[in-house]
């Protein structure tokens, strides 16, 4: 059994998922067997739904370059999920995938690559 806590994207409920996941992991470590399952986060879909990830700079000049912004938006959604104990993270953009994998290699050397 894998738990999907229903990921909230950055700016769209991320904090709920983040705290729910921390509590799931704490409960599992304290012996709650129903929660002692790997956690899956569907990050890509949620992150790229946000208008902040897609709106072109021409329409929102203070938001900066949209292609870099979208990738950062996806990473800033994924990273807190990983810190809260995500076991499987589903991303969309190849560059955020590469950057996150590089980062995860430091925590989990076997995942390097």
């Amino acid at each position, binding site marked *: 059994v894998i738990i999907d806590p229903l990921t909230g994207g950055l700016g769209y409920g991320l*904090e709920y998922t983040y705290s729910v996941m921390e*509590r799931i992991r704490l409960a599992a470590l304290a012996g709650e067997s129903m929660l002692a399952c790997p956690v899956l986060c569907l990050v890509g879909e949620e992150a790229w739904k946000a208008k902040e990830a897609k709106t072109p700079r021409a329409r929102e000049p203070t*938001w900066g370059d949209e292609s870099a912004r979208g990738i950062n938006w996806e990473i*800033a959604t994924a990273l807190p999920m990983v810190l809260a104990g995500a076991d499987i993270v589903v991303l969309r953009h190849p560059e955020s995938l590469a950057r996150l994998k590089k980062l995860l290699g430091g925590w989990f050397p076997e995942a390097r690559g």
Partner: protein
Amino acid sequence: MGLTGLQVFKLLPNTNCKKCGQPTCLAFAMKLAAGKESLDKCPDASNDARAALGAASAPPIRGVTIGSGPRAVAVGQDTVFFRHEKTFAKKPALLRRLDARGLAPDRIGPCLDEWASIRIERAGEVFGVDGVSLAEVDGVEACRGAAAAAAQRGLPIALLAETPGGAAAILEAVKAHRPLIVPPERANAVPFAGLAAKLGVPVVVTGEDLGSLAEAAAQAAKAGAADLLLQPPGRDLPEIHRNLSLIRRSALDRVHPGFAYPTFLRVEAGDFEKAALGITKFASVLSIADHGGETWLPLWTLRQNIYTDPQKPLQMNPGLYPMGEPDARSPLLVTTNFSLTYFIVSTELEGAGMPSHLAVVDTEGMSVLTAWSAGKFSGERVAKALQALSAPDRISHKTVIIPGYAAVISGELEDAMGAGWRVLAGPQEASDLGPFLRDVWATAGAGA
């Protein structure tokens, strides 16, 4: 904090005299442990009890203020490790690195003006640049000018220093503005702490590992510097993450007085991940080299998310929000002021291809079903709110669309709105709003 109710109980006289207003000493102890009572109410408390409770109620992490005036930033004073335990108290300050060498002196003022004027509003919070960081390597003269210009605009300053002498020369004139001194990594803490003590400003302490960091902090405190920030040691992000976590844990558990301070993180250009990690995990002040909105907007939003008080939902200000550029014939929709509800509904409406008016009603931050069952989204209340927002004056028709989950208030709302009004129950899921406007509104609503 620190002590449990039973630990506090053991310090009390156990006479159950009721002079404190509580029925028993145990009840009083529980209130004390929860921070809801003060020991002053117990006339028979021993000095030992006062000392023990006083030490336990001192904040485990010192509050430190950088800057002065309305833009000053206060960090620290956190009391928990997980945000769901209570809330994270002081959100981290995001400082933007100013290139004092690359900018001509007459460009620094306009650049700071631009930074100081950034205001991006999101869910009731205004995002802005919290302050600037300068680097001594850019030149003492250039930094001195930039520091004066930043202080003049009320922007808090951090100086990434190289030498105590250089830092003194740059900061002497702006010391009243409480700039933060950041020594180079692994510098001897004492001379910089001495300078901070002399100027009366906060200073960062570094160390090769956590042990030497705590030692250096203790030394800096001994040298007279009261307001310290700790720079977590670490060569890569996992190590920095571990050390930020251990510093927070050690501070809360009062392992060593050298850990009882907020933290500082340097983020070089292109290191977005480090900034995101720091904001999520316990960094208190960050100096960020990148300037673009593509870096800052996600970081501001992440900070807003992590530092939202989990005890009360993020709320939108009630109001009539234009989705696109609506006119008098555009549809009028109504929803609650729970920020997540608003974000999801507004995102769908903005992408619907048909402009509309979205009325956000004050439901104390509850979502649609919760608000309805709590009586905060009744027909009468919604009607009153729509009138208060002058929503009827903005449209030429008399139709209002309500969330599908609240369809049951349709009749009551029609009555409360008055003659001629019609209520359309919208879809239950916001993702169906686009098709709803295209199909139902286009046929049933627009002509009415």
